[in-house]
């Protein structure tokens, strides 16, 4: 890894971003990624496709044999699949945070990383959306979740959190895909001008015929701003609705009013960690050191640190409320969470989510790529475990000890979980070499802004 940029990093450089880069450099740096990739890349894609095929086979077998091939049994009828669902929806959220919320706040460091984060959002939602289907016993009836007039007098119950989930997640998928495609239009037009053959045709379709007139920009800026404005409350609502899947039930450990903010913070925490986990290797493999500077990672690390502190606070409040309530069921559930059958997992979760990120208080660690990579991988593991201990852990030791049980994931569930990582990474890998993974127009806009800011500074100094 090129150590020079890290070594040369200082606060002043951070404020200046990449002000020495020209517009032409940006096009050159980003468009070279759209050249046909080499053999190593396709080996990687083939490996990921193999993971997906294995998982697909496991799913087919599950459809044929029934849910008995999973480890699901009373009292734990929700476990790994639902943990995977919540995990992937959570991963999606940071993309919208970085692309929409930070856009509304006019945060300058988002420009280089937001496209990758936004693409990650779409692919994570596609992955998440599979899990409720995988978890269905009779998946061929999945369309019963949608309301449509029928002769069986069957209608979804709009009071059920599972139906809210259908609406929230499918809206989220549609809006985040629209937002991604919309935002890419000017960049894809630039790619169209630089390419030939079938790629040129593909980019011509995705660019819709964009030519960059002031008139087109006027409509574009307005629709982009409003989509960001719509995506912001949407992202907060989606994970709140996902948390309602639990909070609306009466199971101790689930039935809690702090769930919506706690889950939203956790989603952003795990999502930003995933952005960092993906961008550190991409930056090295695709040689993007000039565009993805330590300044960007420093800021991403600060978001991880902040959300980690919120999560730590939520863990503490949850445990405190269980004790303070005096309710024997709540107390037992939380005692069992940390000292029961899944206690080891809960402590790994605390180590990864609460202790690991504390190192990010050090500015040197925030810009040290290997350290940041290890911490972010830890957060991903910790956040997956959090969902697992909340979902399976709370169910296995609920109200009456006579119905307590122990859940162990079967090989089917493990293969499908691994396959979901293959599926997600496959889409992301394909995207990163076929579409502009870094926004050229926004970086150019950022540079123009930086230049003006520097001119103002110089004028003041003079």
């Amino acid at each position, binding site marked *: 890894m090129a150590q020079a940029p890290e070594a040369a990093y200082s606060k002043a450089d951070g404020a200046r971003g990449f002000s020495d880069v020209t*517009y032409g450099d940006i096009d050159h740096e980003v468009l070279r990624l759209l050249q046909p990739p080499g053999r190593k890349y396709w080996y990687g894609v083939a490996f990921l496709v193999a993971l997906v095929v294995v998982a697909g086979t496991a799913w087919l077998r599950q459809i044929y044999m029934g849910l008995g091939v999973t480890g699901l049994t009373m009292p734990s009828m929700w476990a790994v699949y639902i943990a995977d669902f919540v995990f992937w929806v959570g991963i999606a959220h940071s993309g919208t945070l970085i692309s929409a919320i930070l856009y509304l706040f006019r945060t300058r460091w988002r420009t280089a990383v937001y496209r990758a984060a936004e693409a990650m959002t779409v692919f994570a939602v596609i992955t998440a959306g599979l899990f409720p289907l995988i978890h269905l016993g009779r998946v061929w009836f999945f369309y019963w979740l949608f309301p449509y007039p029928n002769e069986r007098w069957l209608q979804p119950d709009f009071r059920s959190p599972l139906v809210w989930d259908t609406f929230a997640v499918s809206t989220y998928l549609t*809006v985040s895909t629209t937002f991604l495609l919309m935002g890419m239009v000017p960049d894809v037009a630039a790619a169209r001008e630089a390419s030939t053959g079938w790629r040129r045709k593909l980019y011509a379709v995705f660019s819709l015929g964009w*030519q960059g007139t002031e008139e087109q920009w006027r*409509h574009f800026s307005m629709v982009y701003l*409003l989509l960001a404005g719509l995506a912001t409350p949407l992202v907060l609502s989606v994970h709140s609705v996902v948390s309602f899947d639990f909070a609306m039930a009466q199971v101790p450990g689930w039935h809690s009013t702090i769930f919506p903010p706690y889950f939203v913070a956790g989603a952003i925490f795990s999502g930003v960690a995933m952005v960092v986990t993906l961008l550190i290797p991409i930056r090295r493999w695709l040689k993007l050191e000039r565009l993805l500077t330590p300044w960007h990672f420093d800021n991403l690390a600060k978001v991880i640190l902040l959300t980690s502190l919120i999560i730590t606070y939520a863990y503490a409040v949850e445990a405190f409320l269980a004790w303070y309530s005096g309710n024997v069921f709540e107390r037992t559930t939380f005692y069992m969470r940390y000292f029961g059958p899944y206690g080891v997992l809960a402590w790994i979760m605390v180590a990864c989510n609460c202790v690991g990120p504390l190192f990010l208080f050090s500015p040197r660690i925030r810009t040290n790529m290997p350290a940041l990579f290890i911490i972010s991988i830890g957060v991903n593991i910790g956040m997956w475990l959090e969902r697992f201990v909340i979902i399976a852990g709370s169910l296995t030791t609920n109200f009456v000890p006579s119905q307590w049980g122990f859940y162990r994931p079967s090989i089917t569930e493990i293969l499908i979980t691994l396959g979901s990582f293959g599926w997600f990474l496959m889409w992301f890998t394909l995207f990163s070499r076929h579409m502009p993974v870094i926004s050229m127009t926004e970086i150019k806009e950022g540079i123009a802004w930086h230049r003006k800011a520097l001119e103002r500074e110089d004028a003041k100094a003079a």
Partner: protein
Amino acid sequence: MSEQVRIVGTFADEEQCAEAIEHLRHLKLGKVEAFVPFPSERVNEAMELKRSPVRWWVLGGGITGVISGFALTVGTSYTYPHHVGGKSLSSIPPYVIIAFELMILFGALSGVIGFLIHNRFPRFEPLPSYSPRFAGDRFGVVVSCELAQAERAEATLKESGAEEVHRESV
């Protein structure tokens, strides 16, 4: 009416491009258009365009979404009545979630439709005077004017710092 021409000036600098637009608009030689590689506030100011009407599409879509959300949920409750312990057939608080999601969905989609309609997208023929460089690192200013005014327009573009100026017949 005398012969019309288009004068195209290419700029490397945002500020010079904006100044050229201001001068040309002041001289009132003809219609001025600009090609920019990124949304430039400066060029936007110089063009003095009104705010995009796409926002009304989003508003309309959002309102339609809220109404549809409540219509769907309340309507379903009464079309497929399911009495539970004498409770009312429809309950508003959970329906707010559906209405909210549909507001976002319809608002976003109708915004995109508005964007496509106002720009006449998709369009697969390049606009006249477009150059691929305008998607990269160059700014373009196009003046559509009468032949008699062409020289004045060219001179203005050059004075403002255009790298290259050329004339296209219409």
